[in-house]
């Protein structure tokens, strides 16, 4: 089946890419790995007149870690790189895991974390960790750069806070301190090539056995990936006993509004949010 026609464009600088994107606003799509671009184009979900390939722009495939800033993931850094990186495995294993459970070996060799969030699917596996860990999204536009907190990034299905002519250049995840642990759990029927029925990410901070900070993020149970602040509030200031964790799981279930679709009913999704919230919190605790 032939793809709809478009004009392929490359840019050698970010500024040039932003300018092209603005010039063809509404008619152009940015391309990194293309794995979430070509299938919907074939189905005519969208039919851009222009495709702007970022792969010629130097420096966008960075993957660095800094004790102050944290983990910086460039727009062209592939999921495979994240999955295989010993640096990521050591500094933020939840991020490495979330990359590994996406799609297949072939998709991860091309697909990127930044592309994953820019496509803004409610079930995307990258978002829950970023939400739970307070990531920042670095954006370049025609008039300069800005930083979007991840909790303000997702606006809807395939809708983000990016303005015309804006391109995400990197995502920065703050460093996990010694008393902070994070986890992401994906629940899907198949081990590969499947979307999450639900996903849960957690970040827990413990001081002297007491939880002093926490975040719980949920995937595939709302129009965007979401934080569940009520679930986190249950945990903060307490020792994380089974009863407290159970109460947080209930709060997470109450925070979401899933739909029924081919993968699961809304009731089942909600029930599984309870189960996986507990497991995600416990997986954080097991790491201490």
């Amino acid at each position, binding site marked *: 089946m032939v793809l709809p026609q*478009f004009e392929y464009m490359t840019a050698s600088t970010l500024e040039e890419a932003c300018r092209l994107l603005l010039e063809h606003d509404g008619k152009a799509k940015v391309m990194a790995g293309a794995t979430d671009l070509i299938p919907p184009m074939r189905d005519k979900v969208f039919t851009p007149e222009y495709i702007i390939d970022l792969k010629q722009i130097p420096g966008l495939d960075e993957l660095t870690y800094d004790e102050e800033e944290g983990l910086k993931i460039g727009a062209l850094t592939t999921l495979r790189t994240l999955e295989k990186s010993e640096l990521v495995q050591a500094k933020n294993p939840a991020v490495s895991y979330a990359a590994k459970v996406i799609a*297949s070996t072939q998709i991860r060799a091309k697909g990127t974390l930044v592309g994953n969030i820019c496509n803004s699917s409610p079930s995307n596996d990258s978002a829950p960790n970023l939400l739970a860990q307070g990531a920042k999204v670095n954006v370049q536009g025609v008039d300069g750069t800005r930083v979007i907190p991840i909790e303000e990034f997702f606006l809807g299905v395939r809708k983000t806070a990016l303005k015309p002519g804006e391109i995400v250049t990197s995502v920065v995840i703050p460093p996990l301190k010694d008393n902070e642990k994070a986890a992401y759990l994906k629940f899907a029927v198949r081990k590969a090539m499947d979307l999450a029925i639900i996903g849960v990410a957690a970040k827990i901070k413990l001081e002297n056995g007491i939880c002093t900070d926490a975040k719980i993020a949920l995937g595939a149970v709302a129009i965007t990936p979401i934080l569940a602040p009520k679930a986190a509030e249950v945990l903060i200031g307490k020792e994380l006993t089974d009863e407290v964790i159970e109460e947080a799981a209930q709060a997470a279930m109450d925070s979401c509004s899933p739909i029924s679709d081919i993968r699961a009913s809304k009731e089942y999704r909600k029930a599984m949010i309870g189960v996986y919230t507990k497991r995600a919190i416990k997986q954080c605790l097991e790491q201490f």
Partner: protein
Amino acid sequence: MMHKSVISLTINGDSVDAIVKDNLTLLDFLRDQLGLTGTKKGCEQGECGACTVLLDGLPVNSCCTLAVECSGREVVTIEGLAREGELTPLQRQFIDKWALQCGYCTPGMIMSATALLNHNPHPTELEIREAIEGNLCRCTGYAKIVEAIQAAAAEMNWEEA
């Protein structure tokens, strides 16, 4: 207006220059423009892995790759593995272990497994199964495929020793 681009890339070790439509996938370029029909067309959605080729050494779905984005890069297809008619140990083990029935997934399977063995000469069974997680086979149940990859790894390690 039909948009076209000039590309230069390496395919199975040969330099190739071509004029391609911008909306041409690498899969259709290989099969229809170059006649390299060993790479199979399955789902065209990046789900089945029948179209797997190596792009700069990594396995990718050629149906989810534009020909034009491969300019300056190196592509290896199933036709690029055998040297002067001699199959690679992996290809031969697929035959010896009966790792195929209808054969449609086989080129993609072999490309994924080739990439695995190039990067990891001593894979565990789990690593083998993860390497072919993006390759669907509806005939074999995968057991014989895993056996063939294990046998090829053993043979290649033995040859190196």
